[in-house]
């Protein structure tokens, strides 16, 4: 691996510019952008490569030979891969819902969907899990409907609300919103920003 090629810089590039290039790439491939995306594993691999390249360059420049401890300001991949949190269930569908979460985490959407069809009764959790299956498949309209339903049935659940907010925010993409460049609709942008802030507050709050 040529670390300079990975970061798109040359051996002559200054430290600051290498850092800038690294940050730019890390923002792009950050695992948060690929939550619920079927290509999350590829983005994670890319992120790892970028981290390694950055390490190699910085170590080389610092005159070190071994690639051991490096600057602690790296973005880490791995722990985020959009996996569902485990939670304790009770009630009629308890074991079923755990199985569904497991299937979703393994990327086995067909099985998750089949399991959900077998559930007795449809509560908020059912709609949330169904929404997540749709989300992974790229069926965003159905996902929004299911998440909205889950939020209406259980308005106090933060997991449902966060999922709906993420969906409505175009899931990050380093803050990229394709339509923003095409339309000068500032109102939407403001809404998105508000949404962002709310999200941050809520997440910090719980």
């Amino acid at each position, binding site marked *: 691996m040529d670390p300079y090629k990975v970061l798109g810089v040359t051996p002559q590039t200054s430290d600051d510019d290498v850092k800038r290039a690294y940050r730019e790439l890390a923002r792009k491939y950050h695992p948060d952008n690929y939550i619920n995306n079927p*290509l999350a594993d590829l983005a994670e691999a890319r992120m790892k490569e970028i981290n390694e390249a950055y390490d190699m360059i910085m170590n080389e420049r610092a005159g070190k030979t071994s690639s051991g401890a490096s600057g602690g300001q790296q973005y880490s991949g791995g722990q985020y891969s959009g996996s569902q949190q485990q939670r304790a269930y009770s009630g009629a569908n308890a074991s079923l819902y755990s199985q569904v979460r497991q299937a979703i985490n393994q990327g086995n959407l067909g099985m998750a969907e089949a399991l959900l069809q077998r559930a007795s009764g449809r509560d908020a959790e059912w709609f949330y899990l169904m929404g997540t299956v749709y989300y992974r498949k790229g069926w965003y309209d159905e996902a929004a409907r299911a998440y909205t339903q889950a939020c209406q049935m259980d308005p106090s659940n933060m997991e449902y609300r966060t999922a709906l907010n993420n969906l409505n925010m175009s899931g990050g993409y380093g803050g990229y919103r394709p339509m923003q460049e095409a339309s000068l609709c500032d109102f939407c942008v403001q809404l998105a920003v508000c949404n962002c802030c709310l999200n941050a507050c809520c997440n910090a709050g719980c």
Partner: protein
Amino acid sequence: MFGFIRPVKPELRVKEADRFQQVYCGLCHAIRARYGRFYTLFLSYDMTFFALVMGCGEEQTAPPCRKRCDAHPVTRRACAVPDEALELAADVSVLLTYHKFRDSLADEKGPKRALAWLLCHLGRRGYERARARLPEADREMVQSLADLQQLEREKCDSMDRAADASARLTAAAVPHTGDARERVLRQMFYHVGRWIYLLDAAQDVAEDLEQDNYNPVALRYGLRTPDLTEIRQPLERTLERSLADICMAYDLLDIGRDADLIRNIIFLGMPLVTKQVLDGTYQTNGGWGKHGSL
């Protein structure tokens, strides 16, 4: 000369605009060389984009050749030299065009149906040849089209379910190579297909309501009038998600050439067309059947 997928020309560099035209002309010549004049009449900008993306892994661009054609009989125009990606795009273009005729034959009534029958008849031989080249892709396309027609008959009111069949049809154009690149390209063209299908449905709401045709957008939101203002925001949001997925897949591709041109199309062209269709200004900005900005 139709298709939603086009670059925003004022933002292109001259060499990129030239390259786009060369690929467009090169694709037309590749289709003509393999399948005759008939299929060149249905060449779209969408397929030019497909050719660009499929070829973007190459490092080198061969210098263009100059050729005459029916549309430009006097001057020779610069054309991209046919390579693997361009030939694949030519084959896929024939398959998709033929399936479009088949779809119209199943949907339409009256004179349009007669026209679709005629086109199917004329295109049959070319299609057989393309199918022999890409048997697997064709099998997937036939299956998706059958699913789509079934959903249309059932008057399916889930936009995503109908769009899924159409998106699988587009994704089928990506050849099976079994590597990460195939996964990325399939994801990318799945969402390209979803975006085109939903945008097309949004564009046709007025016509479909008038003629009482199947329209997933109208059914999903229970529209009685062709006014899109009410549903603009949720529709834009769901389309935007597909665009974001296209971008994120694109970022994972190893790009050797045409990076800026493809970026222009994905990051500027497609959002612009989305906005125009939802505003109802698409027709006045060129629209179908016109050269538009190019």
